[in-house]
């Protein structure tokens, strides 16, 4: 049988905490940017003007058709080199964090856009008609009538997406960024205790995700009641 040796974990905690900070920074940034851009995309997609709705739909569908791993690699290997050529700037030292932030923000905004679009469509048509009858222009109608109700309806889904996002940030492993998972893997590899470090990292992810989804479930129950 395998003999567990957990002794390398206590000393690794500061590095793991630093990794968790990277994970959380990625999650929160992508969530905030994602919800803001997602709202704009959703409103654009629902607009009646084809030259507004088409580009938004194309953007959303393009990002949703390819794997997140590919998006991360695009924004790490391809886009920075392209920008350097176009803008004639020098290659900077470490772009991993910046490229991951951009990749996750752009990627997540398409997933948030779909959630928000469904939320907007869940607002009864009568609300829209009433606002129009009051003479509100489209932007005011969205801002004051539709979005506040839609956002309340979709809060649980937005939070569930945040949990998925939190889990997906571990994929920055492919560009060698030391997030929580990357840090755990590196230490496990260094000390020859990969089994313990991976199980430990899994446990932490599990506890966080389980607790947050339990909270979301309770929130959902309260908002339904």
């Amino acid at each position, binding site marked *: 049988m395998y003999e567990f040796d957990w002794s390398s974990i206590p000393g690794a905690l500061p590095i793991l905490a630093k990794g968790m900070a990277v994970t959380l920074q990625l999650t929160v940034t992508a969530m905030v940017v994602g919800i803001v851009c997602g709202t704009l995309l959703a409103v654009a997609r629902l607009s009646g003007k084809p030259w507004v709705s088409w580009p938004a739909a194309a953007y959303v569908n393009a990002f949703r058709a*390819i794997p997140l791993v590919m998006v991360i690699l*695009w924004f790490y290997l391809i886009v920075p080199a392209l920008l350097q050529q176009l803008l004639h700037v020098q290659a900077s030292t470490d772009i991993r964090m910046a490229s991951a932030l951009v990749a996750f923000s752009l990627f997540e905004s398409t997933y948030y856009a779909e959630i928000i679009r469904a939320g907007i469509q869940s607002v009864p048509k009568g609300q829209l008609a009433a606002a129009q009858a009051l003479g509100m222009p489209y932007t005011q109608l969205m801002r004051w009538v539709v979005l506040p109700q839609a956002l309340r309806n979709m809060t649980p889904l937005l939070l569930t997406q945040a949990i998925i996002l939190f889990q997906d940030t*571990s994929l920055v492993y492919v560009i060698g960024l030391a997030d929580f998972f990357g840090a755990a893997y590196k230490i496990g590899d260094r000390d020859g205790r990969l089994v313990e470090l991976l199980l430990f990292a899994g446990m932490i992810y599990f506890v966080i995700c389980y607790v947050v989804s339990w909270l979301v479930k309770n929130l959902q129950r309260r908002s339904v009641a």
Partner: protein
Amino acid sequence: MGYAWNWGILLSTTPSGESTYLGWLLAGLEWTLLLSLAAWLIALILGTLFGILRTVPNRWLQGVANAYVEIFRNLPLLVQLFIWYFVLPELLPQSWGNAIKQSDPLLQQFFAAWLCLGCFTGARVCEQVRAGIESLPTGQRSAALALGLTLPQTYHHVLLPIAFRIIVPPLTSEFLNIFKNSAVASTIGLIELSRQSQQLVDYTAQPYEAFIAVTLLYALINVVVLLGMRWIERRTHVPGFVGGR
């Protein structure tokens, strides 16, 4: 801009000489398809089984199914993959572990990724199956039981035939996801499609062509699956039931 486009690179032969770079991409595509379809099979079997267990009137069975869903939904896919690949062989009895470690690395990678994706997606399918069964009016179950059908018969003849047809639309998105999630297998070294794009960059120094080609292949998979599932959705649509999310 000073980039020298060269799409012809895809048709030139690789250093090993037995294939073209396009051949590499297609070999990667094959692994992606094989992995995803094989994992989808596991996901459907596990998802159906546990989805039924979550709705049967027995606390223990429900508990087992709940535990399955919670474990596989609350761990990142990458962590699950590394646990299947690095941790499991260590925790098995030593002779088994050694047998695994001595086998062909490609087989090790494929089996780890296969089981991982299958169980991961199975937990999501399970939730859809449960939602499908729960969306049926309770009268259906009661009526079947009142007619003297046993519980397995009730599921087989009454509940599942409708539930499965209701959940086709949400299953479509899970099916699309499994192809995208299969790219994670590149992290343990399986040379599937996304891994081939990196390999092409290393070998050809033509990064744009490699990345655009691979991205288009993923988009192609997406479109084909979407069209296929649309067709199935039309064929299985149940009039009167909303194919809900």
